[in-house]
Each structure stands twice: as C-alpha cells, then as structure tokens.
C-alpha cells in the first residue's frame, strides 16, 4: 500500500525543474522596470514623491533598483506612462552603481568575475544570514534550491556552517542585535570568500534605512560582490545573478 502511494505521489509530482533558468520569465511577475525616454508630459514628480524608499531620481528619471521595493506606486501614479514594469527577473549587478536604471536603458549585463569564477565556477557553497529580513527573502532563497529552480544542478548549495561556505548571503537591513553574529560568521569563513547582498533591505537599508534598530557598519568593511534586487527577489533573480557572475558559460 505504502509503495503504491509513494509511486502515485511520484507520478503526480511529474518533472518540475525549469530547464533554462536564463530564459524563464515568470508570468505576472513584477520585475525589471523600464523607463521610457520620451519626456514627461507634466512635471508632477508624483513618482518621486510617492516612492517609499526614495529610489527615484528626476531629470532625467532614474530608479535605483538597490532601493526599489517594487510597490508599483510610481507606475500607477505616472500620467505619462513613463515607468513600466516587465516580468524580466534578471536584475542582479556586480557593481552597486549599475543598479541605477536610466531612461531608455536596461541594466548592463553582469561582468563575470574572472578570479572568482575560476575558483567557484563549478561549485559554490553558501551560508545565508538574515539580519532583520522579514522571511520573504529567506523563503525565496530557500526556493532557489527547490524542485523548480534546482540550483544544485550547478553545484550551488546552501550549507549549515560558515566554515564550509564560500559566500555569505545577507538579507535584511542589518540589525544592531545581529551585528556581532554577522561579524563572527564572516570571520569564520575561510578565504577566498565573498559577500552577496540580497533584497532592497540588505543592499541599501530599503524601507529601514536609518531605522532605530539598524546598524550597517559591517558593510563599511566588507563590500558585496553581487547585488540581488527585489522585495523579495525572485529565485530567478538570485539564480541568474550568481550564474552570470560565476558560471557564465554553463547551461
């Protein structure tokens, strides 16, 4: 009986992995925004006024994806239809300044790291640390290892101990109460190692910039090598950022 039920479950499961993570465009997802290059009809500034994270610059209009929480207030308030969100999940960057999206342009492609991809291009172990993350980023990072996204197929895995980790993946705005633990985790990691900042909170403080419990000093001494925007980022955003940075050639 049990065997029969196990087989029935297995059949219902089918084959779930997404064959090509680079091409996948999740239906309905609010991903990469595009800013039209045609001038605004009015000078209302409603996008910048309503943005909860001051992600928008004016003249010309820009969006800092390291701050954006994808609330779509700007898109909905704009009388000129200048800002439009697409379902493109590929928004990662290796340089912080690359996350500032400009009128009429997409995001520049991530330039693979030559040194790091030589070392980690076939195997990457990551330790995740949440420091004020709301469990949305954490759930999406967990999902990157599920049957759909299956990052393990590239040798990319979550590990329990920082001692076993090559990369520290940070979520949350970095709380003061986690300050010591983050430092201990980082110091425990063997070199070579690098830092990944996931989500608007980790990248810029996001909605919690200058909040009473936030302390971002750690980032003054250790800079992220990869930035993964979103609130929370889609597993595909994370997967593509890592793949582009470390495993550009791999299918």
């Amino acid at each position, binding site marked *: 009986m*049990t065997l029969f*039920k*196990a087989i*029935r*479950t*297995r059949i*219902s*499961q089918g084959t*779930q992995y997404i064959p090509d993570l680079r091409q996948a465009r*999740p*239906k*309905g*997802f*609010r991903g990469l925004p595009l800013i039209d290059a045609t001038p605004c009809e009015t000078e209302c500034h409603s996008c910048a006024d*309503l943005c*909860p994270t001051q992600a928008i610059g004016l003249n010309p209009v820009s969006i800092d994806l390291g701050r954006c929480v*994808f*609330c*779509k207030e700007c898109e*909905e308030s704009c009388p000129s239809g200048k800002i439009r969100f697409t379902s493109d999940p590929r928004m990662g960057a290796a340089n912080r300044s690359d996350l500032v999206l400009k009128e009429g342009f997409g995001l520049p492609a991530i330039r693979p790291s030559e040194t790091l991809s030589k070392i980690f291009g076939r195997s990457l172990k990551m330790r*995740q*640390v*949440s*420091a*004020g*993350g*709301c*469990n*949305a*980023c*954490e*759930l*999406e*990072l967990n*999902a990157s290892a*599920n*049957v*759909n996204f299956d990052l393990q197929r590239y040798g990319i895995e*979550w590990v*329990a101990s*920082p001692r076993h980790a090559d990369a520290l993946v940070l979520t*949350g*705005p970095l*709380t*003061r*109460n*986690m*300050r*010591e*633990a983050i430092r201990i985790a980082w110091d425990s990691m063997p070199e070579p190692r690098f830092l990944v900042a996931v989500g608007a*909170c980790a990248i810029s403080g996001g*909605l*919690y910039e200058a*909040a*009473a*419990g*936030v302390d971002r000093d750690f980032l003054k001494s250790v800079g992220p090598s990869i930035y993964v925007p979103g*609130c*929370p980022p*889609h597993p595909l955003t994370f997967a593509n950022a890592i793949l582009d940075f470390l495993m550009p050639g791999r299918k």
Partner: protein
Amino acid sequence: MSGSVLVHATDLGSLATLDARAWREEIANRLQDGMRAITFFGRTSGPTAILTCVLADSQYRLLILRTEIDPRQGYHELTTEFPSLQAFEREMHEQLGLHIAGHPWLKPIRYEGGAQGSMSAYPFYKIDGKEVHEVAVGPIHAGVIEPGSFRFMCEGEKVHHLEIQLGYQHRGVEKKLLQGDARRLGPLIETIAGDSSVAHAWAYCASIEALAGADLEAGADVFRAIALELERVAMHLSGMAGLSTDLGFLQGASTYGRLRTIAINSMMQLCGSRFGRSAVRPGGAGTRMSLAMTTELSGNVGLLQRDLAIINDRFASSMTVQHRLRGIGILSRNDAVQLGLVGMVARASGVRMDARQMTHQGIYKYVPPGSPILEEGDCRARAHIRIEEMKASLTWLKEVLARHPELLPKQASLGALPPNRLTVSIVEGWRGEVVHCLETGNAGELIHYKIQDPSLRNWFGLAIAVRGNEISDFPICNKSFDLSYCGNDL
C-alpha cells in the same frame, strides 16, 4: 461597509481613563470571567504612561480598558495570576521603563532602545546537577531561516527547560510607522512579517479605512479574503515541506514544496508578487481580478486540491512520519488557554478560536470558512491541522471564485484621519490573529501604532511544549509551531 475583518473604532473622548487600581482590578475581573487579552500595550505621554488593555469575549466583543500612570510607580503585576499576560507585561516594561512590581520574569522581549547589542551578556537560566548540561543554539541556525537563540537545559537527552532569546531581528518597525503619511504605510506594513504580508496589510487597511471613513466596495473585501486564504495555503504548504524535511520525509518535502510554488505563483498573477505585496492597499487599490485571472486561479485551486489529496494521503499513511510526530511536543488545552496562545497552534490543542468566524459582514460572513479543531496538541496535531486548514481554504476559494468570477471594485476615497481615535483590527492570518491598534492625536496624526503578531504570544507555548521531550525532538516541535522571528522582534 468595512469588510469582513473585525475592526473596532473608539472615540477617545468616550473612553474612560481609569484610576490605576480600578483598572487593574477590572482587567483581573474580566479575565476571571473568561475574557482574554488580545493585546495590551502602552505609550509614554510626557512624564506619564498610558496603558491600554484590549479584552475580547468568545464572540470577539471588545472591551478597552485604559489607565494613565507614573511609569516609576507602575502597578502590581498580573502575570502570576494570568500567565497569558507575560509577554505583554514584559514588553511594556521594556518599551516604557514601566515598573511592574512583583513580575516573575521581566526578560526583554526584543532588546530594543538602549539595550540593543547587549544580548550576548544576557544571563540565561541555569540549573545545577551532575547530569545536567546546556546546549546553546543560534542566533544563526543551520538553515536559511531567521535568527533567534535557544538555550536548552537538559538532563541527558531530555529537555528540562528551554529558554528562548529573541530580538535579533529588531529593526524598529513601530517607530518607522509613525513617520510619513499614515495612509501610505502599505509597503512597510508588508515587511512586518513577510510571510504574512496580506494578513498584516489587511489589518492595517481595516484600521485606516475605519478612521478615514472609507466606504470599501464589497469586491475589494472579497479580493482581500482570496489573497489571505492563498497566503494561508501557501504558508501551510511551506510549513509542511519544512516539517517533512526535518522528518527526513523527502517525498513530502519535494511535493509540498512543488505545490507551494503553484500557490505563490497564483498570488503573483493576482498582484505581481509571490508574497501578495501590493495586493492590499487602503481603500481597495490594487484589487482587481479579471475573468481570465479567476479562471486561471480556479484551475490552480483545482490542481492543488487534486495533488494535495495524494500527498496528504501519503503523509497520513506513512508509519514513520506518523510515529515520529505522535505524542511529541504535547501542549495541553489547559496550557494553551492559560498562556493565551492563538491561531492554528491553539486550534491543534482543542481551543476553538478563529476571528474569521466571528465577523458580522463581508465575504467571511456569507461564505464562512471551515475552521477545523484537533484535540491532541502534539506535533502530529499541529501538522494535521495545517492539512485540514488547507483543505478548508481551498474549498472556500473554489466556492468564492465561482460566485465572483470578476472583481473590479473602485477605489474608495480616503479622507483625512480624524483626531483622537483608537482603532483595533483583527485578522485571522495563517498563524493566528494579527492585531493592529492605531491611535490618532489632536491633529489626526498617528501617535501610536501597536503591532501584534501571533508569534509574540505563541513563542512561549513552544518553550512549554518541548519540556520533557528529547532535545532531538526540538526541530520538529519548532517547525510545528512555525513562528515568526521578525513578527516578534519588530
């Protein structure tokens, strides 16, 4: 109408401020009579502290009791007689420096304010004896999850006591909420506990709409309830996948995980976010569901029903799974009531409470969702209550989607917030009741925002449930409670 969520707005002019002694006595009497505190908090006002206790009877009829006292003088604790108040009194002590005479355990809830960064100096409880040893876990755990610290005091393998240390996730949400336009707090609210974005957003909106006198269209109410039930299904699936992993039941982990993808992708099609971000905004903005979307969502609900039945059957008939869960981490009904636990944890211990069933209007009134109860209070009951709740939510979704093939409500206009009001709104999220209390000042500005995630109360239930169990049972117990760190730490 204000929708199917319980919301209570009070004109502060009509709310008596009791003398501290009478106030304390009244709270004790009402608790004695069987009411329970759904939230209890304070704020400073110049040199004094204003304390507010919100009590509810079994029908969710509310009674608000308020006093104003000198925080140095404080009052005599109520926790010894009513353990359900322990977290509230600790929180008031921490936030206001309130003197609560005689309180047995004023451990900080989250180390906020000046106490930040001092957590590692905390002296945990100690027990002595030859056979006794301690195990420290955290704040960073061995998985992709939030931080929190657990200190086990064990005799051999047996857990004598567990002390939970939280606060690592403290960001300062409540203070942030007092900045900026109170009607535009949606994005911040959705990050209080990101896995309960819809529940918190709805509680917030209900209060704002009650304050601003917004006339919410029925369609917006239906849409919110659909999003809330989808959130419940998604997080129960996530919890079942996690529990299966901890049980070493890999087929459960992968299958529940796969089904969760369907649930959250359905949410994404409604609002662009797998976590329901932007789905619920004051006045009903963002709530639109075309015929095509409903059809697709209905199809996904059907798919979930079909495949869930298969894996649930497998879960229920797997001897190793059932054996591993049965009799582990028992929380008695009496303990659940005494500790004031809420939500699915309480319902798995035989306590009947569900805010969705107490509403007098809106979609939950016309299509009441099923609210299963299990009696055993062990890990098995807390797993199976989630299975039963998913089934109930999917049945409910099927019916509601059939009744409402299209939801295109117009945005209700939101006036300015009136001065000197207090609102309480209660949403039955997947963990339990989410309570938001907002208070406006003389100019209609927000002067206080109290957030109450169910986790604040339920964490202590976990500490009690693991007593007497093996330390290796802890991961299963913890997962079966599935509590929020950030929702507690704020």
